[in-house]
């Protein structure tokens, strides 16, 4: 299979780009696979990639209801970071960030991993204290963290509102290794890599039911017929609730809509990702020049992939409050993605009580950055039937046990995470 390279781009350019082959096959499903992954979004595709590449499991199908990459990997704000605080989370996200750092060379696709830093601003002493606690947790877990005071931020980001802000900027927490990635390219890179390893990616194939007998899941019903599998791996964040309902399971998850926004293209404006948590606003600038920004979820259960005006306004208010220079930039497009909002804001990578049925979901609005580690750890679980060491806490039964991974301290109300 052909590798991409600058030389190849040059040679193809000379010959009218006639030699490029499809990035992936369009196979028909076989009757049986060792592992069937339901969901051809970022996490499903990365699971397939690592299963086939790292764990040697190649008889794998990825079933995708629509087009590959049409999950939340296709509609997010592209941020990568590992600035978490709790032991159940931070090592996992740091593992993910490390995978991002070598990803493009690994799967031979330029996903434009750009470690241009992420900054979380703080505005009060209690907020600062919480950020220091978090920064120290990050460093103790082997990640990078840096506290910046107001003077440093004034030098680095003179366009922030330092002098007239309702909530004065007191400083910020940097993670310099954080940044952004070209989100669609992640899906395509994983898909191409998995396809090259023999994984069947089957698009326009919706799972309509599970074959479960005596507590064992042996396959799925799909719009392209029944397919049997040794292990069925659900990976459909956003739709987890109604897919798992087909297996008779209720989940500690609600589906919510998160809107995201992009402005018209602009010449370089922002250096990295800037997060104004107190004002529900975060922003970065894409390589194409658009300001990519967002804020809170709309707050009500929804599968509609679109939101409403109050949150649009709330996000813009946050933006204007923190950087009033963006007032004349225009919002070009807004969209909504469906989030698996879990009961403590943290995800699940686990077996279910049904043998052979596995579940990956509950990523809230943080699934994109987790894509490599989620796939890697899910592949680990599927291949070895035990959790990867950095994902041992991401269990479905943790609420019954009372083990909460609640970074924000908001409790069992999903729309507050």
């Amino acid at each position, binding site marked *: 299979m052909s590798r991409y390279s600058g030389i190849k781009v040059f040679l193809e350019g000379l010959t009218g780009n006639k030699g490029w082959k499809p990035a992936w096959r369009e196979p028909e499903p076989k009757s049986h696979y060792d592992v069937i992954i339901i969901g051809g979004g970022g996490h499903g595709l990365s699971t397939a990639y690592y299963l086939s590449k790292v764990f040697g499991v190649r008889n794998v199908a990825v079933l995708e209801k629509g087009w590959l990459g049409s999950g939340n990997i296709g509609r997010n704000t592209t941020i990568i970071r590992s600035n978490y605080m709790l032991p159940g989370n931070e090592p996992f996200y740091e593992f993910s960030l490390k995978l991002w750092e070598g990803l493009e060379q690994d799967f031979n696709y330029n996903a434009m991993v750009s470690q241009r830093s992420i900054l979380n601003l703080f505005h009060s002493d209690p907020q600062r204290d919480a950020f220091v606690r978090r920064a120290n947790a990050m460093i103790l877990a082997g990640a990078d963290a840096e506290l910046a005071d107001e003077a440093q931020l004034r030098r680095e980001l003179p366009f922030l509102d330092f002098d007239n802000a309702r909530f004065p900027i007191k400083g910020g927490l940097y993670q310099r290794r954080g940044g952004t990635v070209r989100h669609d390219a992640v899906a395509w890179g994983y898909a191409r890599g998995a396809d090259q390893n023999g994984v069947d990616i089957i698009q326009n194939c919706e799972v309509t039911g599970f074959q479960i007998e005596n507590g064992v899941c042996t396959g799925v019903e799909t719009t392209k017929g029944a397919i049997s599998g040794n292990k069925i791996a659900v990976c459909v964040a956003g739709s987890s609730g109604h897919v798992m309902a087909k297996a008779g399971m209720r989940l500690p998850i609600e589906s919510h809509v998160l809107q995201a926004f992009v402005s018209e293209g602009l010449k370089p404006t922002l250096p990295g990702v800037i997060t104004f948590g107190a004002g529900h606003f975060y922003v970065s600038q894409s390589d194409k020049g658009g300001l990519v920004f967002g804020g809170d979820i709309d707050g009500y259960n929804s599968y509609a992939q679109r939101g409403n005006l109050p949150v649009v306004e709330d996000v813009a208010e946050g*933006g204007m409050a923190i950087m009033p220079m963006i007032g004349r930039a225009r919002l070009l497009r807004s969209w909504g993605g469906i989030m698996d909002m879990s009961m403590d804001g943290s995800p699940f990578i686990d077996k279910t009580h049904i043998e052979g049925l596995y579940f990956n979901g509950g990523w809230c609005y943080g699934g994109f950055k987790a894509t490599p580690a989620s796939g890697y750890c899910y592949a680990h679980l599927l291949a070895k039937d035990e959790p990867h060491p950095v994902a041992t806490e991401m269990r479905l039964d943790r609420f019954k046990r009372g083990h909460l991974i609640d970074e924000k301290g908001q409790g069992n109300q999903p729309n507050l995470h």
Partner: protein
Amino acid sequence: MTEQSNRLAHGGLINRDKRLSFKFNGTGFKGYEGDTLASALLANGKGFVGRSFKYHRPRGIFSAGPEEPNALVQLRSGAHQEPNTRATVAELFDGLWASSQNHIGSLEFDLMSVTDLAAPFLSAGFYYKTFMWPKAFWEKVYEPLIRRSAGLGQLSMKDDPDTYDKGFLHCDLLIIGAGPAGLAAALTAGRSGARVIIADEDFVMGGRLNAETYGINGMEGHLWAQNAVAELAAMDNVRLMSRTTVYGAYDHGVFGALERKTDHLAQSNGKPRQILWRIYSKRSLLTAGATERPIAFPNNDRPGVMLAGAVRSYVNRYAVAPGHKVSVFTNNDDGWRTASDLQKQGVEVVAVIDVRNAPAPVSLNGVETIHGAHIVDTAGRKGLKSIKLSNGKTIATDCLAVAGGWNPNVHLTCHQRGKPEWREDILAFVPGGTLPAGMQVAGAASGTLTLKAGLQDAAQSAETILNDLGMAVKKSESFEAEDEAHSATSFWHVKTTGKRAWVDLQNDVTTKDIKLSYQEGFRSVEHLKRYSTLGMATDQGKTSNIAGLAILAECSGKTIPETGTTIFRPPYTPVPIGALAGRARGKDFRPYRLTPSHKWAEANGATFVETGNWLRAQWFARKGEKGWRDSVDREVQMTRASVGICDVTTLGKIDIQGKDAAEFLNHVYTNAFLKLPVGKTRYGLMLREDGIAYDDGTTARLGENHFVMTTTTANAVLVFRRLEFARQCLWPDLDVHLISTTDGWAQFAVAGPNSRALLQKVVDAPFDLSSEAFPFMACAELTVCGGTPARLFRISFSGELAYQIAVPSKYGNAMMGVLMQAGEEFGAIPYGTEALGVMRIEKGHAAGNELNGQTTAANLGLGGFVSAKKDCIGKTLSQRPEMNPEDDIRLVGFKPVNTQDALLAGSHFITKGERENMANDQGWMSSVAYSPSLGHSIGLGFIKNGQSRMGEIVKVVNPARGVNVEAEIVSPHFYDPEGGLQRG
């Protein structure tokens, strides 16, 4: 060049009496009132106005509306600079200043245009395949290069100097678009008495009537529109909103609309530049018209190649000849109209090329008409010079009008994810089955592309809507007009092998790129869009999407409807972020809440701090104090030595009444309240239902059925909400009623050994403050200062003998003064939130940093407050095994081993001798203070097994700040641990 050399001598809807000056790229030009920047530039022969996104090709004005892909300029200068403004919709004003964008060097000699030569290597998605080696080069070399060449216009990086506003409007019927259909519907609904809003993005209502030569009811179209507008303007029940773009359709009939108030003026003069309206409609009618689509052919991107309808707009509405030798390229009848309109205005038409082998629908004199041919190439780098036809002929022309058919503007029908449907007869998508609730579509937007049919469709739709709303339709005259010749053919692009034919002009996506995407497996329409960037530019593919789909369909052998369509998302046209934010910026981002003694504090040297929306006195600096620590230390010391006063009004106060009020409190607090005597106050702890500690405060029993609860400042609103949930949804039969009185009472902590003596001077006789009559935790209603009602609580946050006294808040500012006056003999001082915090840390009380939503009652050392005898919210789930592990964290005190060391909040604890990593993390420091009472830094923190580690020395590590110290685990009660003082 002579002034306005391309301005026609007659006609147009411009005001020739009002000549306007403007500058483009530094050169001065003239135009007229009624011009857009684009029409004025064309009037002055400026056709080449911009550079494309990727290849930096010279580009000209392509359209006459919001669909413009090419003519994007930076409007205005300095902090007012506004990137990516479409010249085609920018209204000309005197003194307008604009410049072209996206070039290095001048517009004419753009250094970046070398990318055009490298085009063979820059095909769709090329960047995904390269720039990966060496790894470090992406961020250091490639990406900065790409970022600099990408993007379009530039922000000034200065704060937006304009203001914005928002508003709310309500109507029975919102009509979106004031073209012929919109006006006909508005007349019908308006005359029938409905509350109507009709909005149009243009500054003149009438839509295409202003750009065409149609007649209605025997009148010229634009005059009919003028009359209609005048009639509507006279109706009280109709609101006409020009310069207003309805940009988004949201749930349940709510629309977002942007009204441009001062964009057509040189200055906004302090008034809002734009207003963002939320329009609440019972019904809506989309009459947004249609957008013309081009045909892709080799080198179709040159300045001078324009949409045919746009050419008619310039000639008819603006009296501008977009060229001196105009040619027309069409696949339908409508294109021919361009030639006849041009001729009518005396503009030379050199040729009409129709791809069809069909007779001419109109007869033209002196024009070469070519049937069954198409264009295979063009020439003229900075302006069209000639076109080459498939029959081998080359025609000299400086403007080519391209007519590819019309696409209904279905955008708003898709904002709620409705899918448009394909109509083969007009070869276009029309609104699909699932429209936003309450919406109907009429006129060209619904696919009714001819005038008479559109007018009747709209009037009929309005009648249907009125009937739906139960309103009587007042019949009036019908709308008479011609149905113009109309046809459509599926000629989307000229098939080409060598040369590039542009589909998306702005993003430089060519027919080849679409084919290459397909070749590489990007075959779903969403993949095509994302891989090739088709339709992702500032025009969101308004002129390019359908051609792109058609070419994709050709590649796959499917039909266009089988191929699908990408999703239109809000906004219809881009909306400034400033407008979406409205007034909420700077100090107006959120309201301020001020404490009742704010004025007093201001006058007495307070420094204020934002706590939520409240502004509170943080400390009161005195002359000679060098920093905040001096002030805070003094405030603590003087309070503990004598008496201090602090405004604590921000605590949430909830009046709770009812026969079952005590039982209700028993449900929501962990500890028992049934037997709290009248006249007593009790500390209460609340859990969330998941068992985590949530809030605490004191609740006083003023009467058998009357309690007053206090909450923390931060949780006041949230606790109220939860209590209402418990009252209405969990225990609906309890007789209990809640009302917030937070703002009603000015409440002051009066703390310190002399607090009683001070208050004695204020309370009215015969109130007895002695410990016997009014012991610790007592409460009472009384009067002060000769009859002012007040409430008094003997509670202490500082650990001192202390009270909280409350008076109605209009007396609050005066009360602060009175308390200070009465305290003068004791040296009373006001203290702020910092001293309050220091004293509570000295006393070991948990506050926000400890009640952070992650800790249990046991973690906080408050396990004893969870009654074993009764249920309460959160109790059952708090008993889950892993919320009560053996090595659970516990709130304890920390004292630095070296008392010179400062403890820092956010530090983590590591057992001595262990390595500093996450596995060995023992907990964290939640709050610290310098204790003036003890003379060293103290801290509160959570550490595993804290209660059984008293006296242990642990490492307090803070790698983020580069500070590691050692501290001893001690009781959290640093000050007066037995509590004798507060009971004294």
